[in-house]
């Protein structure tokens, strides 16, 4: 299976860049942006499988970004990765179509597992959509 194409959205540059490096090393195609608007633009320009999204960001916040992303690309799976631990916002996120909600700091293995699952789901959805089209 081809490794997922990932968009990393986090205003914490050090973290975003580090995570990007780590994931790239593990064979993922990773793009990094630091705010919501850029994320929306990136999704418009390029095809991604999984978006890793921070919630608390300057400008457009995570939930807002999530809503727009899901409207533009319904098949893209979003994993919320945040330092803010309110389960309420987490549940909010799930309600708007996020695949999972997880708290920083997260071990890389765990994150990779979640990415894998999210990617899997996207593929299943795409396949279902294709067969739907064919039929």
């Amino acid at each position: 299976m081809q490794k997922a194409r990932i968009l990393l959205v986090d205003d914490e540059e050090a973290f975003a860049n580090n995570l990007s490096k780590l994931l790239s090393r593990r064979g993922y195609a990773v793009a990094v942006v630091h705010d919501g608007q850029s994320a929306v633009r990136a999704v418009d320009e390029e095809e991604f499988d999984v978006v890793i999204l921070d919630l608390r960001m300057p400008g457009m916040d995570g939930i807002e970004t999530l809503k727009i992303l899901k409207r533009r690309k319904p098949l893209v799976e979003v994993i919320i990765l945040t330092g803010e631990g309110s389960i309420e916002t987490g549940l909010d996120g799930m309600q708007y179509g996020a695949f999972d909600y997880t708290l920083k700091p997260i071990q890389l293995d765990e994150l990779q597992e979640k990415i894998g699952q999210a990617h899997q789901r996207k593929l299943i959805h795409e396949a279902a959509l294709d067969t739907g089209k064919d039929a």
Partner: protein
Amino acid sequence: MSELDGAGGNLHLDGQAVHRKSYSDLYVKFITLTLICSVVPILLVGYGIYRYYSEFSTARMEEYFQRKVEYNQNVIELFLKERTADLTLVALSHPLEYLKEPANLKRLFGILNHKDPYFDDLGVIGENGKHLAYHGPFDLMDKDYSETFWFKGLLAKGVYISDMFMGYRKIPHFIIAILRSEGGTKWILRATIFTESLSSLLQNVKIGRSGEVFLLNEQGIYQTSPRLSGKIMMQSPFDMKMFSGDSGVRMLEYDSEETGLPRSRQVVAYSWLKEPRWLLVVKQDQAEVLEEVSRANRAIMIFLSISIIAILIVSVITTRHMIKTIQKRDEGEERLNKQLLQASKLASIGELAAGVAHEINNPLAVILTENQLVRDVADEATSFDGEFKQQLYESMDQIDAQIHRCSRITQNLLRFSRRIKSKAEMVDINACFTEVIELIQKRAQTSGVQIVTEFEPGLPSILTDAFQLEQVLLNCVTNGIDAHDGKPFGTIRVKTRHDEKRNGIEIRISDTGSGIPPEHLDRIFDPFYTTKPVGKGTGLGLSISYSIIKSLGGEISVNSEVGKGTDFIIFLPLGSQGAGREEPAPPS
């Protein structure tokens, strides 16, 4: 926490003192108001009745006395008229010649007195004032009346009735004289009337105990003996100016020194006779007259007093009841306020905790990724010497471990601070707990602890938040596992039971761990309180559990014995109203 509580306690005490004062103020105000509103009208009505009745009875009394006076006046006037008529008849029907004969006079005297012996004597007197004939018990033949007051009066008037006087015979009496002209000669028929005959007419009139009827002349001298006070011919104590007009009713103060009777107020009714000018007096003690009135007034007073006392009692009882109700409500409110205060205190602590957790989580994430990067690079590097590489890996492992520790702390902080809306649903506690225990069984086993469940079958479902309840169980069981540190094995027993008496579900989590010393026991639900070694616990688990159970409307308590183990006892009411509450109640 305890310091805050102490301050709260003082505040509470002051508040109560203030409240107690305001309650007693309210009490006094209420009773005063009730009394004013009810007693004043009663008093007014009572006074009105009293006044009306007094006036009414005074009017009736006056009328009564007037009638008495009138009646007795008629009796006296009739008596005098009859005697005058008797004499007039004799004088007109017999010539002087006939009457001059003592035998004839005696015969006529006999006729006049044949029924009632009213007349004491009978005399015929010439123009010169000397007796022409006389019949009577006294020898008055040679008396000369020409200078007496009655003789002079008679010559002017024709008929004369005298006042009582002692006269020659020194006995009180009065006379009736008729002037007769026969041809050119004038002569007089004169009769003396027994005083007793007149006195007895009045003395026999009885009015109550103190009432009496008597006659006075214009000078205020008794013309008859009163039944009780005074004697005939004596000066009466009355001021004659008082008796103005033809008749009337007067109240007067009776002076004891003058009458020899006890000092009292008297009702005096009077009427002037036309001829002679005598005053008929009917007199009675006012106290006796007004006896009936005062009895009625006493009854009114008693009735009023009873009403007022009844109102007083009722108003005291109702007021007390009301104040108690208000007090209870106030206390409830105060309790609620205290809880709200605690809750808001806790909420702000929670917010702070969330902020801190969030701020720490981000750098932790950076550190973690940095560490991972170094690890990646190190994995690929070949030029390190063995010792360095070993040290590097050990350090990186340690960094990971510490990050993990930090993230546990922040996660607990966040859990403590989060205020998720409870999602109330029907929960089968047995099933829900089974899942949780499966999850944690592995961790328990590695610590040598066995988890035993004793679930009561057919436990009723309960309306509550399954997620939060799981959290509590997890906290308690984790706590139990940690309590076995230093023991090779142990047991955690999770028991559920339907408590029918209290209509709820009791959950009992018992461990065989080290137990909690009594001095820690009342603090274990305080946030950040922990007895675990540094790095092992955040001190939030049980505090969170406490908040959750309280917010679910239940109770959590703990029993513990050092060396034997600890029991957490959770009670959840069936049909719990607490589910859905947003604010976690504070531990107290």
